[in-house]
């Protein structure tokens, strides 16, 4: 399976929405850098993320969230927090890493 990474704000670029539109069932999507804003509940893109959670695993990199002052309580439920070690594990567990820049 593919590990997709998204590092752009979903409010400035369509990287997250495009990624979720292409990600196959069972694959993983990891939000990093400005991509972590896509994990906030109640935003303009929250519905797209919520719908994707039915078929795709969605992760968010905790140090990038903390840097941006986004509290864990504000996240869409079902989005999983991971640290750098978890990022490495995800990369190792998948056959390819595909970046959505």
């Amino acid at each position, binding site marked *: 399976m593919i590990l997709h990474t998204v590092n752009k704000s979903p*409010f*400035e670029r369509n990287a997250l929405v495009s990624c979720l539109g292409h990600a196959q069932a069972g694959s993983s999507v990891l939000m990093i850098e400005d991509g972590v804003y896509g994990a*906030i509940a109640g935003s*303009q893109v929250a519905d797209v993320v919520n719908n994707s959670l039915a078929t795709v695993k969605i992760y968010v990199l905790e*140090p990038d969230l*903390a*840097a*941006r*002052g986004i509290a864990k309580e*504000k996240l869409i439920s079902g989005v999983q927090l991971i640290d750098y070690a978890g990022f490495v594990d995800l990369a190792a567990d998948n056959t390819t890493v595909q970046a959505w820049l």
Partner: protein
Amino acid sequence: MSEGTIKKFLYLNRKAPYGTIYALESLEVVLIGAAFDQDVSLAFVDDGVFQLTKNQNTKGIEMKGFSLVYNALGDYGITKLYVEKESLEERGLTLDDLQDVVYEDENDDYAEKKSILLVSRAEMGQMMETQNVVLSF
């Protein structure tokens, strides 16, 4: 500019912090500009509202955090931080998610006052029309 002329300067911030250098560069230019005693306002629109979130902790990403600098702007006479309501809402945020930026009003016995002005998109547009110079980040 001729001596004694005070112009209205607007710094327009539309980018999230840390992912790009815009937010930090804006802050640097604001601080430099503060030395010229002009009428300065800051606008936070679109992803720019993310610059003001509270509890930013950059230790984990090993970058210099600069969110606390916003609260020092009052000491440089910068007391008008316009934040757009619609931009917050589109991002799942409210004013409660932003830090309390305050200044001491020297014309009011140094009373502590709020610098953040929550305005609608329409009001933000009107405020932009009143400016002499706009610097975009």
